[in-house]
């Protein structure tokens, strides 16, 4: 690979941005505006605790009764304890109510009989007494409601509280939980948007044909694009992360370089995805139509709003293919859980595989330019 030619292409992209100040401003300002809004909306941290219930469905009587209690919301139900605890460790939940804690202990049709020897268990992360008591109190109240407000003789059974250590310490604030998702979404959105449009222009203006008739190689073109867009992706990620950390006090419990590595791997893949997909668009309007197609499934299925483990099995299988799923999972593990390289290695490997596949796709697409 010729460094001078690759550098020239990267510099050309940087110069293009320098002349196109409106785009440059959008790269920096739009994420900040969104971050300010998110900070305003969730920054006070007074929202409900997110509770997962094992062994019950969302429409079961207990879950509906539990969900009616103040300060808690059942955000997911699970069929096994391991998935629920994994979601708790990932920061997707604040607490888990295990199966033994409700329908198997209380039998409403019989007028509220507490099965003898049954000890309901709730699992919480960290040592936050307020969180424990809120989740436990909600259980007590929900159980009482299920038994028509009649507390059985001997009272309700004592709850067993199982505290698991969260690697990052105490329960994360909402903004800390949202920051990895935001920075991933912006890195994906802007890198994809700018690369695909830039490459479409390269094709439609004839400059790509001129490049392909020159000594530059296809690998140098892809590398030049990557180097050209990386600084802007880095500036944007720095702004979003910086705002979240400094202004909104989002936490980064793990090594910062690992956050950067995750984002760099994501951007490498997305630059090449943008190049490859731009080949299938004839104009900028068509490229814009790719954006929701590429981003929305990843936003909805990538664990940004709902834990991936709670998804319907086939959708969970699909979400594993998404780079956003792995980037968000890895960033949450590093930023919230303080985890290290070994812990996020599977996610990093997935991002490396995604990047490699997209580079391959980029080379294929460039080859097809030569009829």
């Amino acid at each position: 690979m010729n460094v001078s030619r690759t550098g020239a292409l990267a510099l050309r992209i940087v110069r293009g941005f320098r002349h196109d100040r409106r785009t440059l401003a959008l790269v920096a300002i739009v994420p900040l505006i969104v971050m300010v809004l998110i900070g305003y909306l969730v920054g006070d941290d007074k929202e409900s605790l997110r509770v997962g219930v094992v062994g019950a469905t969302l429409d079961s009587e207990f879950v509906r009764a539990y969900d009616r209690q103040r300060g808690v919301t059942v955000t997911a139900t699970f069929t096994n304890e391991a998935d629920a605890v994994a979601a708790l460790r990932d920061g997707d939940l604040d607490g888990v109510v295990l199966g033994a804690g409700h329908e198997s202990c209380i039998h409403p049709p019989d007028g509220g009989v507490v099965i003898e020897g049954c000890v309901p268990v709730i699992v919480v992360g960290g040592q936050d007494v307020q969180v424990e008591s809120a989740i436990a109190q909600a259980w007590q109240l929900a159980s009482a409601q299920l038994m028509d407000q009649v507390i059985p003789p001997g009272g309700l059974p004592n709850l067993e509280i199982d505290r698991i250590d969260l690697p990052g310490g105490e329960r994360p604030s909402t903004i800390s939980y949202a920051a990895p998702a935001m920075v991933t979404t912006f890195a994906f959105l802007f890198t994809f948007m700018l690369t695909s449009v830039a490459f479409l222009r390269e094709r439609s203006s004839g400059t790509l044909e001129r490049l392909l008739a020159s000594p530059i190689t296809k690998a140098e073109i892809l590398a030049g694009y990557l180097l050209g867009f990386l600084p802007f992706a880095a500036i944007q990620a720095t702004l979003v992360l910086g705002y979240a950390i400094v202004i909104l006090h989002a936490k980064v419990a793990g090594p910062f370089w690992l956050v950067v590595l995750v984002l760099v791997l994501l951007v490498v893949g997305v630059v090449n995805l943008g190049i490859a997909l731009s080949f299938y668009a004839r104009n900028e309007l068509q490229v814009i139509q790719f954006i929701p197609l590429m981003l929305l499934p990843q936003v909805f299925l990538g664990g940004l709003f709902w834990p991936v483990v709670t998804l319907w099995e086939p959708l969970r299988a699909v979400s594993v293919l998404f780079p956003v799923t792995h980037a968000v999972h890895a960033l949450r593990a590093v930023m919230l859980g303080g985890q290290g390289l070994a812990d996020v290695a599977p996610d990093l490997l997935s991002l490396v595989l995604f990047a490699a596949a997209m580079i391959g796709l980029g080379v294929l697409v460039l080859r097809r330019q030569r009829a």
Partner: protein
Amino acid sequence: MSDAVAIRADSLVKTFGPVRALDGLSLEVRAGEILGLIGPNGAGKSTFIRAVAGLVSPSDGTVEVLGERPGRAVAGRIGYMTQSAALYEDLSIRENLSFFGRIYGLAGPAARDRGEQLLALLRLTEKVDRPVHELSGGQRQLANLACAMIHEPRLLLLDEPTVGIDPELRRRLWGEFTALRDDGTTILVTTHVMDEADRCDRIAFVADGRVLDVGTARELVARASADSVEDAFLRLRDGGAA
């Protein structure tokens, strides 16, 4: 003009699906000449130029450029001027020149000097720091030519270089092409403007992906017993000439 061959195409075929863009095209372009490919739109002129530039792989037949198969090995010695001004609109002429110079391995003072020389030659010095999107159509074409010439190529491929520009600028451009030829550059130029045939050393009539005849304008007119180059082309194409 030497007798050496800059481009040799033999029975070149290129199909795009059911379309035969090149249908057994054979042609030799001598080193140091201006050869004009003349024919209507869709005749296969641009496809041939793109095959010479290594942008199109032949379906059949062979093409040799400066003694080699088209590709990266020879790309550094070829200058390619596309039909529309293939320039970066956000960058200035100077930045475009600098970029394409580096792509062809030119950097530092050598690149700067060559850029200044071209800008003076094409009378673009005053516009050098203006972004391309602020230039007129003619100025863009001049800048386009400058970028194709930045690395002093031995072979210049010009795909309809004078489309959409005024007669005065067209005359200037042809003046530059002639000067380059005099300095030893081989030029293969496509056009469907018959007036430009007289400015070429030789012309090749191209229709339906084949070369109908090659020679000087005078030779072609005489062989077709025609009054003009245009008449000669039409007679040949319609089978009116012997």
